[in-house]
């Protein structure tokens, strides 16, 4: 282990932040793809020099860029995300049906073992797979063709597939989350899918315990405990210990259980991090205090982490893909804000320091341990 590389996607480009394993002195490289909205940047665990980025924009649509030298240089790869079958229709905000239409890539999930295999979650919600390093993309259409598809409706950010959780040893099992449809799982490599939302309660939908329609914001899993999933829902922090078959609330003493990202400690599967946000109309932290909350009991009991974070007049948001951990012996935790700060902790969240303060609004943060 020699250091870490933090991959940051922002409203106006991507940045690569690097440090040795002390994580005190940082080099900031970027912006890459200046002017493009970069919803996500993700590196291959199988080959850390291989990184994909998903720049998009209102003018020129979606492109995918790939680096094979750790983010120094980039080349465009495939960007054709055409649905594999007639698109069908989903719910629109006004209750009418609207045809599925591609607008952007939200999330890239590289395989842990195959440097050429990467998944993409897109808006309107669908899952794509590339087995040639991103040169070509093929939809796993069984998800979009699930019978509940016409009931799916967009969250405020659109009908997006934003989270992809790959099982560490079973390549046939994938869990995805869609706003605002919920969580779906395949056990056959993506051919068939079923919703796994039992136990979720969402007051904002006509039937709070419905099979689909939940605005799930983010999921995380510790690779040593693949049957345990943690969830930040629109409201409520949730947990499942049977691979999503059943969920229970673990919000406990959080000052607000609204939020976007959720992360789990690299070496402690029962240590979980969230960033409470006041509400869906107030997209900033309660009381103007930026606090990460950590549970060391797998939820229910949470402690505020504040050392090094602004505790007054702070009104930024932390978006769903903007928190990540490294795997150094002393686990590092990182998150980015809509105010352009990227904060790092090299002691599991006990203390924080900003790596950078003035980037464009941060959309995503991922970490590679080198």
């Amino acid at each position: 282990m020699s250091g870490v590389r933090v991959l940051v996607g922002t409203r106006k480009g991507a940045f690569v932040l690097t440090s040795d394993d002390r994580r005190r002195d940082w080099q900031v490289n970027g912006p890459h793809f200046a002017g493009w909205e970069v919803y996500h940047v993700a590196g291959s665990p199988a080959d850390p020099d291989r990184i994909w980025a998903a720049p998009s924009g209102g003018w020129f649509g979606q492109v995918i860029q790939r680096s094979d030298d750790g983010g120094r240089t980039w080349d465009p790869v495939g960007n054709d995300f055409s649905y594999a079958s007639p698109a069908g229709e989903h719910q629109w905000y006004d209750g009418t049906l609207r045809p599925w239409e591609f607008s952007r890539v939200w999330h890239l999930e590289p395989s842990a073992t195959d440097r050429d295999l990467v998944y993409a979650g897109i808006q309107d919600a669908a899952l794509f797979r590339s087995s040639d390093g991103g040169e070509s993309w093929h939809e796993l259409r069984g998800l979009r063709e699930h019978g509940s598809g016409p009931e799916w409706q967009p969250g405020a950010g659109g009908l997006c597939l934003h989270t992809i959780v790959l099982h560490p040893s079973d390549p046939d099992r994938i869990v995805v989350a869609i706003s605002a449809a919920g969580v779906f799982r395949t056990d056959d490599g993506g051919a068939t899918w079923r919703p796994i939302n039992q136990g979720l309660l969402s007051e904002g939908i006509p039937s709070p315990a419905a099979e689909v329609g939940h605005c799930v914001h983010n999921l995380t899993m510790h690779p040593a405990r693949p049957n345990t999933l943690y969830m930040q829902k629109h409201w409520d922090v949730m947990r499942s210990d049977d691979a999503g078959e059943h969920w229970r609330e673990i919000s406990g003493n959080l000052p607000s259980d609204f939020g976007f990202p959720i992360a789990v400690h690299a070496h402690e599967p029962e240590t979980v991090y969230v960033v409470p946000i006041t509400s869906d109309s107030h997209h900033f932290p309660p009381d103007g205090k930026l606090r990460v909350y950590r549970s060391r009991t797998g939820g229910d009991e949470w402690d505020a982490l504040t050392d090094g974070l602004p505790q007054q007049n702070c009104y930024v948001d932390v978006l769903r893909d903007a928190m990540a951990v490294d795997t150094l012996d002393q686990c590092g935790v990182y998150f980015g804000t809509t105010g352009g700060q990227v904060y790092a902790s090299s002691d599991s969240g006990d203390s924080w320091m900003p790596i950078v303060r003035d980037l464009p609004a941060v959309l995503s943060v991922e970490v590679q341990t080198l």
Partner: protein
Amino acid sequence: MSIRVVLPAHLRQLARSEKEISLDAEPTQRGVIDALEQRYPALRGTLRDPATGQRRAFVRFYACEQDLSHESPDRPLPAAVAQGNEAFRIIGAMAGG
């Protein structure tokens, strides 16, 4: 037939090209974009939606002080463009306030 094409900054960055390039292309919008994508595969999908082939909403085509964006993609371009005297200009429409 050599046609002069002016690219906006985002697409020059993507194609790693000069601001103005020359293309051997049929003198229609479709011909120019086909030739552009052939020479610069990185631009595929950036001007036209890959699924529908439609011009992206905020992409505009100007030449000879005219907005050609709403013309049929197969309509011949103005003679001055076809002859290389005027450039076919691809524009990212003003947006964002």
